[in-house]
């Protein structure tokens, strides 16, 4: 289980934030007390925290909006213009 998700905290959460978040999580009862305690313990452990930070935080924005390379080709027509340019072909008329 993702401890950040269980406690609803970000990767930059301080120990104080984590304690508060654990208390809140216990009140909301979305996760069991054992899960919350385990998540709190993991995030309070500095060595473990390095590993957890690495594992659970991936910046997926490069996948959402990949930068487009420099396009040296001719400017493309808009969809409307290109659609208008389509001409009926008579090649299939008997």
């Amino acid at each position, binding site marked *: 289980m993702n401890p950040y998700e269980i406690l609803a905290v970000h990767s930059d959460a301080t120990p104080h934030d984590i304690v508060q978040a654990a208390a809140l999580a216990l009140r909301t009862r979305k996760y069991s007390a054992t899960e919350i305690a385990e998540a709190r313990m993991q995030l309070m452990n500095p060595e473990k925290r390095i590993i957890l930070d690495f594992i659970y935080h*991936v910046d*997926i924005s490069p996948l959402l*909006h990949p930068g487009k390379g420099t396009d040296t080709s001719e400017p493309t027509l808009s969809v409307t213009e290109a659609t208008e340019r389509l001409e009926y072909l008579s*090649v299939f*008329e008997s």
Partner: protein
Amino acid sequence: MKKKSKKKIQRPEDVLKRAEKLFKKKSFQAAQREYEKFKKLNKNKVRISEEVVEHMAVCRRETAVIRAGELAKKARRLLKKGQQHQAIQIFEQAFKLTGDRKLLETISKLRADSADKDFIDSVNQAEAAGNFSKAAEMLGRRLETCADKSLLCRRARCLVKSGQWQQAAAVYADGHCTETADLYAHGFALAKEGRFFDCLTVWQRIQSEHPAFTRQKEAVVSLFLQEAEAELEKEPLQNADDIISRVQSLALHGDFSSAAELLNRCHLLKLAKLWQGNRIDEIVKRDVITKPLNITVLAIQARAAFLHVEAGGSKLAVGTIRKFIDLWLSSLFVSGTETVREPLVKAGLELVKKYVGYHPDSGGQLLRQWEKNVKLLSILDKLRATGKIDKSILLLTPALALRTGTCRDILLLIVENKEAFSDEQFFLNAAAWYSKGAAALLMAENHDYEGAFTYLDKLDKDKNDPFVAHAVTMVRVACGLNALSCQDFKKAQTLLATAVESLDGSEWLLEQLVAELDIEEDWDAERLNVCADILTLLQKKYPSDNVAAALCRVMTRRAVELFNTGKMNIRVLVKTLVTASALNPDDEITKYHLDGAKCNLEIAELNKYIDRFKLSAAGRLAADTQYSEVREIFFNMIGQICDEAEQESFSRADAGMVLVQKFLKHAKSVDPLHPVTLRLETIAEKNR
């Protein structure tokens, strides 16, 4: 005098008589004519019987039928000539004569056909004039009263040609029109409506490679892709699935590179979505690795693999752990900073060790793979830190480098920075793992020895490349050792002998080979034969204390095993052990076996001398031997002689005494203080 011709006056009675006669002969037409003549002449003078009236009616009817038949024939002739209108008139005349229902049906059909022809002519004229809108309208009106499929399709095509895309698409939507021209027109209308995916779906059914059509299809594909791109920009994670299914259903990726790119992007977005949803198992199952590598994808895959292995524990297959090793280490060396790398490497290794704890059989190979990869990536990272490496090059394990096509770049860096490698052997190994032989090496590492062995053929053209050659040798060693463990001794012998020929002084390989050939618990004679042969080759080619020691141990084990199973006699055993001992005089086990064998050999010889009554030779052997066991056997034999002498069992007393004297002499030379010697002395004294 000229005779004046007289017109014969016909009497009505005679005419009627003739008519009746003709009626009886069933000449109804002639009879009818006569009846008509009678009517004109009679003027009610002669009374007509009811029978005659009936005959007259029959004649009228029959005459009409005959006439109608003639008219119908004529009409049909006209029809054949294409004179439809005249034919209809004649059929109508015939119908008036008889009122025949069949004739009426023919007339109706002909009238309808004529109307259709007129209609079609009008539509044709409209189309020829380019007035497709009018043609579509006419066809639409006609379709209100007649559900003709061909007219429906024709109307749809006219709608397309008149630019009424929406109406045309609506007409085509019912799927009745399946002619290629209709499929094309349908797709075209959809494309004009901006429904590019629908257009391409319809056009998929057209089997045509006409250049104009192909061009237009490509244009529509391009529009579809543009539209899909725009959708992805708006809602990347939500639309990816839908776009994947659409692109896949059109099977475009093979023909259109931009479609393949789009599909690839959608797959990556799907991966991001799975990551956001914590769907770790699905991410691991998808095993998406792009070529070229996308760092974010690697990051997701590596982390998912970690969580998967952490949760999966003992249930996972070795292959999953292998993949985890590649992904995790590559991810750490591609993007992890040095400060966080150490604990992360440690965490990964702990996972591997935990798995090895469950599956000790696979432990060696997994830990070797881990170690090899850490070593390779660490040296490459070291090069990067000294600025000797191009920062843009991704440091990947050989397996991932092979999958993402970056082997060549890494190999170039290794070769260009040879001086950074302190050890020539390590340099050669590193280069081999990123050379063209990497695939074969990886197969061998994954225990696919058959695949690796087959792959060697593909490397034949690169055999002059030193790194490929080294990789080939490494693969041969791995395959040979595997054949050895599978008891395929012939194959093992061939592969290992070839590998030894091309070892080129590779100490690392040599050590590996020697370690594998010299296994302490191994007592299989056939296997030992191969090991001894290969070690002998090694000792000839690359003599060293290490190889000599291994060969000594293997030779000893083989000789002892052969002797124990009765396949080697004691003399050969001693000879072999002497040779083995010469290779490594300090080898305690060989020394121990040699000692025992020598002792056994002397005992055997002593027994032989005794059996042949060669007492001098036996005595000399017992005197010279260093083994107390040999001496004891000698004295046992003399003891028996003493027993016989004391019991005076010798046939001749003097002969017995000669023997005692002889034995005493030899016994004294062996051990003068031995109880048997002393006993012999007493017997000799008594009988003196």
